[in-house]
């Protein structure tokens, strides 16, 4: 192992983190991962940063909205909707 690389065990933890945070790991793998975390503060720090990053994605609120829907565009959509209803009745 190179001096500036995380250990193999840390790498195994990194590889399973999304499944761990999504609660999709098997109980045995989860227990193994948590046992490693208990003895590895840098990995705990990493897990927390990933968790916060995922939370940011989940709470994403885009600043920009689309332009207001023009009358013509709305009419086009409404016609498509009405046509679908009529076709269904005919069917």
């Amino acid at each position, binding site marked *: 192992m190179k001096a500036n690389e995380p250990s193999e065990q840390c790498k195994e933890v990194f590889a399973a983190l999304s499944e761990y945070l999504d609660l999709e790991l098997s109980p045995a793998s989860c227990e193994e991962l948590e046992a490693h975390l208990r003895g590895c503060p840098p990995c705990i720090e990493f897990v927390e940063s990933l968790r916060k*990053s995922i939370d*940011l994605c989940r709470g*994403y609120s*885009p600043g920009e909205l689309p332009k207001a829907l023009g009358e013509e565009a*709305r009419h086009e959509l409404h016609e498509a909707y009405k046509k*679908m209803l009529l076709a269904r009745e005919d069917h």
Partner: protein
Amino acid sequence: MDRQLEVELARRLLAGEAQAFDRFVEHFRAKIFHYSWLMCGQREDAEEVAQETLMKTFENFRQLQDPERVRPWVFRIAKNVCLTKRRRSIFAPAPAQELSLDALVPSRDSRAGGRDGSMKIEIADWSHLPEDLVLKTEMMNELQAAIRTLPEIYRSVILLRDMEQLSITETAHILEVSEDVVKTRLHRARLAVRKHLDGRLRNSVKEMAR
């Protein structure tokens, strides 16, 4: 709007209740616009994708067998419209690019030894990121930048899974890939976003220290 309300609107539209039309359009138009803007990168393209997706949605609405599935159903149409638009655009998609797991995890900082003699992993101090910062524009802009730098195959997964909160199964169905592929891409996308934000956090700490 939560998914249950979307399902209710879809159910009402299928039952011929035209009063649900404007709310449905307004809601999904904004959602598709944001998805396609981050996928296509161009505001005008995103507006067109939103309109075209809604047209196809209404034209084929009776094919929606189960209103519970309205969100993934609309997003599958949006994904295809977006792809067609990208193929025709001068901003055509780049060839699929893979992210390597090794490049996304932190290295150990050999200069900073822990008190117990272990080495410290290079990482920003995320504890300074308060939970309510989620709402701050600056972080949202950074997040948007992080998403935009992802190769497309990863960007679509994180947008559908984490931002639209679709399930692994639904995301796999929309993107026409296996669930295992979704899981692998999602993990790498999340790691890449984390890495981008980590870099920004470190820079802002340095700037504050000046």
